């Protein structure tokens, strides 16, 4: 680094090769194989409170709109079962794969 009275210059900064800071998100990593229990929503008992959506650590429950029950994204669900425990009407059942 060369200190000039007016500005600071970093030698060779313009010669640096272009390098991607990131190639994208981890969404390419499908974590469904981690699961041995699969959550299933009984849509007739669902009261659409979206508490399962709120507490999902994998962001694997999709919110569609207010009047539709949430949908579980089985590409990413790791099967932790937080949604089944937190559901107020117990309409989510953990089924063996």
């Amino acid at each position, binding site marked *: 680094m060369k200190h000039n009275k007016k500005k600071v210059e970093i030698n060779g900064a313009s010669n640096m090769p272009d390098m991607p800071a990131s*190639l994208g998100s981890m969404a390419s990593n499908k974590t469904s194989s981690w699961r041995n229990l699969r959550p299933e929503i009984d849509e007739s008992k669902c009261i659409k409170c979206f508490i399962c959506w709120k507490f999902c650590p*994998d962001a694997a429950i999709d919110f569609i709109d*207010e009047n539709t029950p949430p949908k579980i994204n089985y590409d990413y669900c790791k099967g932790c079962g937080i949604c089944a425990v937190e559901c107020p009407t117990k309409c989510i059942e953990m089924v063996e794969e």
Partner: protein
Amino acid sequence: MVGGEIMSKLTIPQEEIMSSGHLGCQGCGATIAMRYMLKVFGRKTMLTFPACCWSVIDGPWPYSAVSVPLFHTAFETAAIAASGIKSGLDAFGKKDINVIAWAGDGGTFDIGIQAISGAAERNDNILYIVYDNEAYMNTGIQRSSATPWGAWTTTTPVNNPKNRPKKDLVEIIAAHRVPYTATASIAYPEDFIKKLEKAKNIEGFKLIHIFAPCPTGWKMPPDLTVKVARLAVQTRIFPIYEVENGVSYKLNFNPKKFVPVDEYLKLQGRFRHLKEDGYKFIQKNVEYEWELLKKKVETFK
């Protein structure tokens, strides 16, 4: 509200910034905390991670799960790296970018305490969030100074469990007389989000201590993460409160009836060796600490 509009039925912002497919364990509490934080702060955010669970959860380079610029730094320097990034952004005139240091309890309570104390003393305009899973979970469950009394870890085995209480970090940081310090829990997302919104609008050093259970390290089923986090607040083991300017305390959860501590302890394998007298000792300590906290609230009303 930044981070997506709140629909009438949703109590937290809708937009999802943290991506799925990260490498967190099943039922990880730290990822729930990150999800809420990014929902509030949005994409105009820069993060610094020291060595902690999140430096693994984020995934291998060149992929990332947080969708915002992040800087992996050395174990002890999360706060100071965030201060430096903030100063750099200020020098370029980019004043609207929030810089957040996101660290685990080992990098905050033990190793990073000098950097965080320095940043707090200078009152650098950053937000420091510590997600507390009460041990060094990333390296294999070693004791940290956030581990509670009586807990099993690989370095405090059952015949010789930890015999010292948890370090009171919020008190240490509040003693620097910083504008805002708070504790929060992943089981109360609305409260956590309210605190994040508040911290976003305060100039100066802010710290939020969020309780994030770790099913792997606490030896419990992964579906109990949120339930255990809620019980920790209901039993007063982890009270949620905020401190403004280092003196003005405010309790955010103060019901008339409390849950006895055994309900919280019996769910976790790391407390399985405790007997009735151990439960009684913890209950007594919890009540003592609660009285102390209530006195502080009353004194500085």
